[in-house]
Every structure is written in structure tokens, then in C-alpha cells.
């Protein structure tokens, strides 16, 4: 039980897509293709934003 008066941090658990884990050596500087991740994420972001806008029209 938390101490009375003490602040706590909460949040939500994110489990994610573990089934697609790749074997990478994180000690290698370029092990993760961050640029590709950024591109893919921003494409998905546009799609989500459009979907959300579409729902506002319903």
C-alpha cells in the first residue's frame, strides 16, 4: 500500500507486437533503421488523422 501523501505515477501497459521481434545487435550504431520507422509511422499518422476527420463528418 502506498505511503499516504506520496505522489505516484500511473499509466497504461503497452504489450505490442512481440511476435515480429528481429534479432539485432544493439551495440551496432545502425542496428535500428530509425529513418524507416519515422517514414512508416508518419504514413500511418496521416491515415489515422484522415480516418478521425472522416468520423467527425458522420
Amino acid at each position: 500500500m502506498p505511503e499516504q501523501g506520496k505522489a505516484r505515477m500511473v499509466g497504461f501497459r503497452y504489450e505490442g507486437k512481440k511476435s515480429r521481434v528481429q534479432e539485432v545487435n544493439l551495440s551496432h550504431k545502425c542496428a535500428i533503421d530509425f529513418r524507416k520507422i519515422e517514414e512508416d509511422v508518419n504514413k500511418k499518422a496521416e491515415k489515422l488523422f484522415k480516418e478521425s476527420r472522416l468520423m467527425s463528418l458522420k
Partner: protein
Amino acid sequence: MSEHTSFSECKYPQIYDIFLSTNYFGDETVICSCIRKECVYSREWDYEYNEHYSRTIGGIFTALGMFENTIRDPQNSSLSDGLKQKIESMTDSEKSIIYKLIEEFPLKRISNSLSRISIRIKRGSETIYLGFIDLSPFGISEVYIAPPLWMKPPYYYLTCERMYFPDTTLRVKENNAELVNCVPFIKVQGEVAVCAQYAVRMALMILSQKPPTVPEIVFEASKSALKGGLDRDQADGWYPDEIKQAIEDKGYGVHELSRLDICPCGNVLSTIRCDVCGVEYTLNSQLKSPNLENIYAYVESGTPVILGIKNTKWLPWWPDDDGEAHAIVAIGHTISEDNRIDGLIVHDESMYPYQVLPEELENEMAIEEIVDSAIIPVPREVAVEYPVAKGIFEETVGKLQEYGILNNIIYRPLLVDAHHAKRMLGEAVRRAGIMDCNIPENVRKDFLYAYMDRYVWMFELRYDTDTERYRYAGDILIGTKFPALLGMNVPEAETYAFKENEFDDELTFSNYSDE
């Protein structure tokens, strides 16, 4: 000053009702003192209220005049002969008592001031100022009182709480302002408007020191009212699009979360079709769902959320009768013993301040099932709604997890302004006073010089360690003007990214060891 050991002895029954219904003092025994101050002006007690009250008083005044004329000259009245005879048979002393009563009838004049009740409690030798409650001729009006004594961390978080020194407060002494830490509340005055208008007013009171009055909100909304215009009965309340309009009129943007429409046949309408080309789009209900997480993201950021409730009978502090649709304002949240967000703290302007709406109600209904819609006033620049930002965040973390990092994480979403985000990333101190972030100095410096939208969605990450210790896992920043990644800090990959200039198409990625 009136001092009493129990609020049941309070001579203002409506104030007692508020303290009783919020179980304000819990198990504590305190001595309360109320000071009534006259001639404190409130913006709520303005021309429109005064005019409404004047009409009522005018009616009473006219009726009393007619009554006096009837006593003086009964034959000239429309009374029955029997009554006329009875009045004529009254003695002069009996008549003079009636004249005196008419003369001293209490509601013949309206005061230009209202009464403000300042409330203090004594705990042993300590005196604590709780705040004040305004009484208008209609009853309780604005309430600036601190949260109930037991409503505090680690189980209760009033994220919309601020330090208030309302501009209507008189200073008792030089350099002695009566400041109060609270979430302001206002009680519905049915003669003027109903819950939706007061919920809008209350949300604006929380966001701004000088919000418009309810009559001003109603008047402006009537000018541009979407359904019915000026002919609409005020007792009808507002539709969500009218609430949105009223908030936008005051310079805010509006985010709205609401359920998908349901056909009378019971089918959820989850597709829309283009009338021209016939293409059908399937709607993603999660992008607009008024669920606990989507509401929490705004409340945790200090933004009040107006909740449209399907039926008051499901609210624990309302009677279980037939009920009706209602609007309340979420101002904080609760945390369970096992560290989950398990409810919202709300102000119900028709009933009481500081009520707890648990994640699961006694009848086993969840918050999601009783909330029909959520309307959130946000800065105009914030175009990206939380569910969209969350989708972008999930996509980012999902991609990173494919590389075997950021497993078992807990995220905390926050809508913050850029300087707040930069402070969180740029300071070497413990975050929230409890989590060591250990962000390298060069990384902190780059974030201080980075471009950010005026507001950003910040997802703070930590590892789910099942211990009391908080282990920092990084931050993901999402833009609010345009839906895109705006930065990240991933200590596990010793990598961070930020935008150097507003018009850069790509982020600048750097390794912790880069100089």
C-alpha cells in the same frame, strides 16, 4: 462570524448540503467558522440575472399593490360579495397589521450585491482557510472551496486544481489575499439555464480567470444556435454540437469523443458511403470512443472534460428514479491500490462538487457505458486528438519492439505546451520528484534548442517493474498541429530524435555518443 463544531449547525443549509454530500471532513472533527461578507460583486450577479429577478419582483410588487387596494376599497374589487363583506367587517387595527406586512414584505427590493461566505476550519491550534461560497438570491452560485480533506494523493489527483485569487475577492488587509487551491464550481440556477450551459461555464472557469457568465454564454449561443434559435426553451438543454459552438465562440478548439450512431434496428452504424462514387469507409470506433483512457489523457493534462451522461440514475450521487440525460465536468482521477487509474473525479453542477465516478459502478456498469460523449476545450492550435496521437505512439513503439526493445512498458500520455515538454526533457532533476531519467547533457541540450509545436502530445515511458521504483524508458513526442512524430528519446537504443526547424521534413536522429 458564526462558529460551529458541526456543519449541521450551519445557518446556511445549502452550504451544509454541499459539505455533507462530499463527506468533506471525513472522519476528522473540526470547528468551522463562516464569515458573511456583504457588497462583494460577482460577475454572475450581472445585468441578466438582475433583470430576471426584477421581473419576478415586479410581479410581486404589483400583486401586493392590488392586495392593498382591495383591503382599502373592497367594493371596487372583483371578489365575491361574501368576501367583500368580511373585509369590510375587519377592524382598523386588523387592517393596519396587513398594511404593515405589505410594507415590510421582504422581497420588494433587490440588492446590488450578493453574500459571500468565507469558510475556515480550526484543527487544534491551526486555522485553515477553505475558500468561499457565493450566495445569490437564487441560492448557491460560485464555489471556490478546496477539495475535501481526504481527497489527496496517493489515491486522488485533482489535475485541474489551481491557485485562485478571483478578481471579485476583497482583500481583508493590505498584502493579505485570500488565495485558495481548488477547482472552481458553479451551481445550476434553473431560472437562468440548465446543466449543459453551466458545465460549459464551469470548464471555462477552470481554464480562465475571467470566463463569460452563463447568461452571456446562452445569449451568444442563441445568436448562432443550431437548432431552434431564440425560440428554443432554455429548459431543453443543449446538444453536443451546441456545446462545441459555445466553447469555440470563446476562442478554444474542441475535441469530441462520442459513440458511433446506432440505427433504430440496433445495428451500429460503422460505415459511411460516398454519395458520388459509392466507396464505403469503415469507421474505427476507437478513434472517437469516450472511454476512460481517452478522457484521462486530457484530464491528466489539466484540461477539464465535459461528459455527456446517458442517464442520471446511474450516477452514484443521484436518486435511482427515471433520470434524464445530463452533463458533468471531469476534473481529476483516482488511482487504485494496485496502481491503476480506476475512476474520475467530477463536478456535478446540478448537485455537488468533488464527486467520484468509479471505473465500475455498483450496478457493474463501466464508465464507458454511461458516458455518451466527451467534449474537451483545447487550445486552438491542437488539431490532433488524443486517440490519433495514441495510434501514432503505438505504431512507433510497435516498430521499436520489433527490434526487441521497449518491452513491458507503461506509458503516460500528456498534452503539454512546448516549454513544459522541454523542461521535462531538459532538466537534470527527478521527473515528478520520483523518477530518475538520467538523460545525458548533450541530449538535454539538443531538446532545449529543438523545434516543437506550441503544444505536443508527450508519451512518457517507463518499464513495468512491479516494484515501487520507477525506471525511465524514454519519451515519444507527437505533433499537435500535424499528425507526425516530433521527437523521441530511447535510452535503451541510446538514440534520440528531434526536429531542428519547423519546416524540416525529417527528424534529426543522434546517438548518445555523438557530439
